[in-house]
């Protein structure tokens, strides 16, 4: 998947035109364990790269969600409110968190590609 990018905070971004879909990585969900609660951003909200835009909680702990890119939230995955376990089941697909209209496409250049991300988590383990 050439259009999939990652952050060191374990989020992924999939870009189609100027719309970026955001989620957390499969590695992140496996580290969190059973996810039981997600606080999503609100549609229309402006989010800023590297700042907190939501919270995800597993049975073990609460973790902050950091925006991988800046932009306006145009859609959120409402299904996660009542079925947060979707993120465990399908982190990269059905467990997507929000769609954002990109403010600055150049921000994408600072993100990791799949092999760089893989290398990063291999070091973390």
């Amino acid at each position, binding site marked *: 998947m050439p259009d999939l990018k990652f952050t060191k905070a374990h989020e992924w971004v999939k870009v189609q035109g100027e719309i970026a879909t955001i989620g957390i990585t499969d590695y992140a969900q496996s580290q969190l*364990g059973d996810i039981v609660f997600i606080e999503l951003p609100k549609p229309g909200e402006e989010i800023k790269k590297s700042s907190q835009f939501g919270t995800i909680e597993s049975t*073990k702990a*609460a973790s902050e969600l950091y925006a991988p890119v800046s932009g306006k939230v145009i859609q959120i995955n409402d299904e996660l409110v009542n079925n947060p376990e979707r993120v465990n089941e399908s982190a990269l697909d059905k467990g997507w968190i929000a769609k954002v209209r990109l403010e600055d496409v150049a921000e994408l250049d600072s993100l990791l590609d799949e092999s760089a991300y893989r290398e990063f988590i291999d070091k973390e383990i």
Partner: protein
Amino acid sequence: MDSKKTPFYQKHLQNKGRIVDFSGWALPVEYKSTLAEALAVRKSCGLFDASHMGEIAVRGANAFSFLQRLVSNDLSILNVGQMQYNLFLNESGCIIDDLMIYRMRDSFFCVVNASNKEKVLKWLNENIQSEVEIIDKSMEYSLLSIQGPKAVEVIEKVFDCQGINFEYLSFKEIQIEGEEIIVSRSGYTGEDGFEIYFPWENSSKWWDKLIEEGQNFELKPCGLGSRNILRLEAGYPLYGHEIDDTINPYEASLDWAVKLSKGFVGKNELSKIKDIGAKRKRVGFLMLERAIPRQGYSIHSETGVIGKVSSGTYSSNVGKFIGMAYLDKDYAKIGQEIEIEVRGKLYKATIVKFPFVSIKTKKSKKLKLKT
């Protein structure tokens, strides 16, 4: 500091347990899924490594009078082969530790929290009398706990026994394969279950035996995460959350474990507290909105802050977010609506009666162990 390892540490690694440090011990918080492990215990059965627990033997001619003066519950009603929930209290009537006491033929076997063991040993030794011996047996015994409606069937297979007369909160010391083990019908989940103390050395084979026989009974290895969910569902307090040495048993809703008809350390203060009434109370609550309540979160009513969360979790058996809290006594009423502050936002909850699930310990099937 390196965490201490139980004899089952390699088994946890083989089962891909996610190891954490718990009171200085390397133990699995979960294997695959905390929620699935908590479900398995109420549906079939689960196996827990509880070898971190402290075991202290008290023996000698004055062992009974010594302990009876240091615990809140009445040891005189305990026969050999029975066990009792108990509290060690300080002079202010607050809780030094909660423990189970097993009455053996020639001693009392006290099972204390790992985090409190050194404190308890010190306190016991400060109160020592003649003809009393206090022995730390924590490194002599490992402990496996098998919990759930099918636990009894696994025990029947592993120990080749069946029959009658092994009631909840009783135990047997048995000889098997040349080893002395202690099997008690007890646990920390609200389900029927057994806690088995093995000689520390070579005990890992017992994990294998239980897992092997357990295959036919959907036995699942379980970590600390599910243990915490299960005890919360059952309404049981956890030291460091619901109880500590600033909280008394009336506040903790543990009145039933206090017998003012006998003398014990802390009784004077407790008698006064009983007359005045506790200022705050431990209660259970159910979240009406989705949010995880965690220890320390503030609880609000229209008049302001009225208490604090002591524990909270998502309960896979109830299917809701549940918790325990300390509330000002005026608000500690079933049905009281409260709001819990989670990251700056208020979420609605309601006070409910303990436990959150039906307790199965009293209806245990009759079982006779070979002695």
